[in-house]
């Protein structure tokens, strides 16, 4: 469950270039649902996604994710929260180009102190879900955009988080890869994941597994 109450995010507070990114945002995301945050570039949806993911703090308001007030969490607990509960897929993937697919996906497992065998099992499982196991030893910089996307999703999944956040997931994909992504997301929902997607792509408008579309315009929820 994700609950946002009276959330505001203002950048450069009190300065000449003060900018209100989010204004009095309120909504809920129920477990095992798919919610799309829709809006044009600069509308505030990526900021909202990063706040839900505990990578950014609000200026005011409450952000409750899995019963934790994450905006109030001290850094140590926030890191643990991100590691255990959130899988984040970035718009530009943020893979380490010189590492293999396997190594990239295993990175979130490193701080957990797991054995090599456990890491291998978890990474293989994540690669299978994202249909990238055949590229396991490939160096990331040699992958296509669609393959990089799947690696990024596998990395987000590998810790088995309940919540997956995707920021503009189709921005760097062609239509065929976008359809593959939709299929992966559908499978993730079947696995019981809660998924929040920030996008301006109309592809997500009429997907049968999307429960709710929240329209954001100039930092406000508009519909």
């Amino acid at each position, binding site marked *: 469950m994700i609950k946002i109450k009276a959330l505001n995010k203002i950048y450069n507070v009190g300065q000449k270039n003060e900018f209100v990114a989010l204004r009095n945002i309120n909504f809920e995301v129920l477990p095992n649902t798919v919610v799309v945050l829709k809006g044009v570039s600069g509308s505030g949806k990526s900021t909202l996604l990063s706040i839900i993911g505990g990578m950014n*703090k609000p200026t005011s308001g*409450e952000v409750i994710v899995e019963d934790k*007030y994450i905006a*109030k969490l*001290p850094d140590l607990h926030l890191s643990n929260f991100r590691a255990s509960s959130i899988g984040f897929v970035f718009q530009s993937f943020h893979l380490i180009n010189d590492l293999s697919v396997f190594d990239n996906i295993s990175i979130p497992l490193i701080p957990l102190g797991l054995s090599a065998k456990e890491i291998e099992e978890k990474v293989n499982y994540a690669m299978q879900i994202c249909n990238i196991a055949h590229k396991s030893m490939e160096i990331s910089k040699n992958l296509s955009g669609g393959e990089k996307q799947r690696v990024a999703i596998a990395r987000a999944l590998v810790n088995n988080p309940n919540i997956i956040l995707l920021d503009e997931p189709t921005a760097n994909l062609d239509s065929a890869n976008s359809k593959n992504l939709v299929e992966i997301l559908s499978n993730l929902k079947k696995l019981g994941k809660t998924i929040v997607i920030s996008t301006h792509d109309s592809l997500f408008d009429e997907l049968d597994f999307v429960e709710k579309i929240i329209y954001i315009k100039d930092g406000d929820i508009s519909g």
Partner: protein
Amino acid sequence: MGDILLQQNVIILVVAGFLILLMQGLASFFGIYIYKKWDFSSTSAFQYTLEKKSYLIVLILFFSLIAKIILLPYFAFTIDSLSDVVHGAMCAAGVVGANEYGNFLLGLKIFIIFIVGIWLIVNKLDITAYDYPYIKTKLILAIVIFAFIFIEFVLEILYFTHISTDVPVQCCSVIFGVSGSSDPLPFGINTQTLLILFYSIYILVLIANIQKNPLFSFLSTILLFYFGYYAVTYFFGTYIYQLPTHICPFCMLQSDYYFVGYLIWGSLFLGSFFGIVNLALKLLIKQTIQKYFLYSTFFNTIFVIICTSYVVGYYLVNGVFL
């Protein structure tokens, strides 16, 4: 006066001390503001700003206080090194006693380190909790530490500026030795009684730590610290120097004795700190940490073993006691 202030180690000590004082002062100033306005239950923009600021303030306090701990052995090293330029001094004992500020300064430094240690523990408990339960306590404690550090800095300046390189000072054998006080041990006891007390109190510390009783541990630790100082200075030290007339708590910090003084005094300080800290924590934040009883036992045991090993080692090699 100028000769001392131009010594490299003294310059480092004074500049580092000033920077720590500056950081502590700034952090304490903003700490008062945070203390007055803090309301963790609020989700207002103001409270979020305070939380961000408190993170920075606590980080500044943390690093400056860690530096403070490192500076204590460095102070010991510095005053020992000054014995080369202070006439009559053979070790730090003469330098510490070069004016009326030295002994008080040294005592204050040790006292401050103990409070700093308590602050670091409270800080750790606070930042590993979910809701900063001890932030107000540690901010108040930081302000208290700042006050002591300020006094210490003034004393340090007075101390270093009042050491004369022209006037001879007393060496350790005069200060502590047979030609010094006629009755150097406390309460008029003799060395044999001192040793009986020393080992008895050590056993008391062990019992207190096994019972995990903060007050008992505090009292027995304070006693061990007190009698431990005399036992090392007036008995065990003579075995370290292998000379019954060489009575000094500082010479063992020198390379001639493999710097063993740092180990001996360090283990006594750590053992004492962990022995007293649970009572302080109980009074400050109403909780104790069981593992600190174990740490107290460990460090005090190290201290006793090192001291005793010198006597045993001497007897095994020479077949007699001093």
